């Protein structure tokens, strides 16, 4: 469709050129919309429709009935708690690291190397990360074996790597660099003049953090924490590669429900779980957007 027939647009520019320009710009964003449509909207629609379709056909909420079973509740509890703890830990350490970077030389080696390392490590999730930990910290990993040879048995009371503390540790590995990347712009927005102004008015460091930097950074910090939470909550490949057996996390429950060969295959319930996950992420991301809006009011 072109704007040739639209008189309002035609008056603004010469008729032929105006029409062509609009059609070209429309084409330019097409790949993006097709991509989003095919890989985000369409799958979401399929999952939502599937979750609302009863096994016998027709619209119903039957599929959601299974969600309150104790082992499903446990899956959600574990997924949420691992995501929350790894997000808070990642946010704290990431923010401290980002602050260290900001106080340094803006063109210095430290900043450049930490930024590039974060860029790489924030994406170092999934199967590669799981295998990195298997190679180093599993029962036969070289770090484990090395420590054992030197009298330290990190698994004296059983392997905790596959338990929630271990999973949290692994998640923190990609959460910290992500925090550095997303929180750094907010820290950069804090101007040195504000600190000088605080000091010239007789304020202490405590006053500066309590009344100036703290309130300014809080929305950004909370927003980034939420982003980290969503990042961990939706992670699948890492735990799938690590916990090949009996992983009690929502994405793994969905996988089990789809591929069970012992009569427990329930695609409808799997889709209901997926919808529940989507809802949680939507809530978190909405809060994130609201906090981002607040952040950008002061920090640009």
């Amino acid at each position, binding site marked *: 469709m072109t704007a040739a027939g639209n008189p309002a647009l035609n008056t603004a520019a010469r008729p032929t050129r105006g029409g062509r320009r609009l059609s070209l710009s429309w084409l330019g964003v097409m790949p993006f919309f097709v991509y989003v449509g095919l890989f985000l909207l369409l799958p979401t629609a399929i999952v939502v429709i599937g979750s609302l379709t009863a096994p016998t056909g027709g619209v119903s909420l039957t599929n959601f009935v299974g969600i309150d079973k104790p082992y499903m509740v446990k899956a959600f509890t574990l997924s949420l708690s691992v995501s929350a703890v790894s997000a808070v830990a990642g946010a704290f350490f990431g923010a401290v690291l980002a602050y260290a970077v900001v106080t340094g030389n803006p063109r210095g080696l430290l900043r450049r190397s930490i930024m590039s390392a974060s860029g790489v490590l924030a994406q170092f999730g999934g199967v590669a990360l799981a295998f990195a930990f298997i190679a180093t910290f599993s029962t036969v990993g070289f770090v484990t074996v090395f420590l054992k040879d030197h009298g330290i048995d990190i698994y004296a009371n*059983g392997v905790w790597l596959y338990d929630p503390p271990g999973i949290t540790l692994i998640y923190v590995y990609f959460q910290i660099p992500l925090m550095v990347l997303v929180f750094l712009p907010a820290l950069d927005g804090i101007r040195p003049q504000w600190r000088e102004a605080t000091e010239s008015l007789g304020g202490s460091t405590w006053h500066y953090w309590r009344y100036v930097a703290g309130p300014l950074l809080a929305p950004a910090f909370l927003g980034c924490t939420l982003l980290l939470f969503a990042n961990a909550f939706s992670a699948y490949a890492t735990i799938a590669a690590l*916990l090949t057996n009996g992983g009690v996390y929502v994405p793994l429950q969905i996988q089990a429900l789809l591929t069970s060969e012992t*009569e427990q295959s329930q695609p409808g319930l799997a889709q209901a779980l997926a919808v529940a996950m989507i809802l949680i992420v939507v809530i978190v991301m909405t809060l994130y957007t609201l906090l981002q809006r607040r952040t950008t009011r002061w920090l640009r």
Partner: protein
Amino acid sequence: MKWSSPVRQLGLAVMALVLVAACGGSSSGGSASCSESTAKTADSASACGGMDALVAAAKAEGALNVIALPPDWANYGAVISGFTAKYGIAPNSINPNGSSQDEVNAFDGTSNAPDVVDVGQAVALANTAKFTPYKVATWNDIPAGAKEPTGLWFNDYGGYMGIGYDSTKVPGGVITSVSDLLGSGFKSKVALAGDPTKSNQGLNGVIMAGVANGGTLDDVSTGVGFFKKLKQAGNYVPVVGTAATVKLGQTPVLFEWDYLSTSHGKDVSSWKIFVPSNAIIGGYYSQAINKAAPHPAAARLWEEYLYSDAGQNLWLKGGARPVRMAAMTTAGTIDTAAAAALPAVNGTPQVPSGDQTSKASAYVVANWSAAVS
């Protein structure tokens, strides 16, 4: 070829006549042939005009889609190459590490859909509507309880649930009872070869642990309780044991079908298999043909090959017990050297029924996560 009843023979003759009439000019001279429409519904080789016609039709199709057949699973690598060598049709193997459910999920009506499947009992029973009946030439050698009477599915090979272990990594170098595994020498060593909440093999591992500890086939709670104790002792590893994890040493003690466990001997020379005499749990896998198989004649020829003496002896070479083993032993066609190499088993095997498996599965799904996390 033996006929089960004269009525059946008559029925087949009528059917063959109708089909020949329907095919009309396509069958020239005296030699029988098997058109695509005939092959689609043929429930035996003779309904397709005999073995020669079936072979010709399969060669004309020129392809066969198989799914979820790992080459190191029960000697499937050799079976596939044996079939190719004999008939010149190279099976197109899709998703070799898929589950039984993945196999049936792949029935999408396209030319890429699997022609034949090799599935666990539960999946076979749940999906009979998607299969077409077929009886291989050696049908009567398959024990009555090991096949669906019309030929919708039929057991092929199986074995017993065992505990494979690296004898250099366990205390004393030998396992003599399942409760040994709770000892402190097994810290972070014991694994299952499948997730019991979704894998047939994993589920049978839990059933076996249950029976060995005083449970029954009807009550799997003892098995789940055993794994809970394993987990509390820090002995359970939540990793599905595979050839890779065994080679790596991540899963030095592994609940697995004995015929699959045997194959780890080539990676770990000290690998041994223990089948507890008070809990010999048998399990068979079944073959079935996709009702909408894109290569109907090749699908049927594949089954004929699997149930031929050659095919059955290949399972045996892979350490699995072929379903025609008893009949072949009587007939003297069994590979005696391979039969002698099977793990020694003393006691009476028990095979969970479909109902028992369903009940166990439902219990495990509801209670597994509480036990091991």
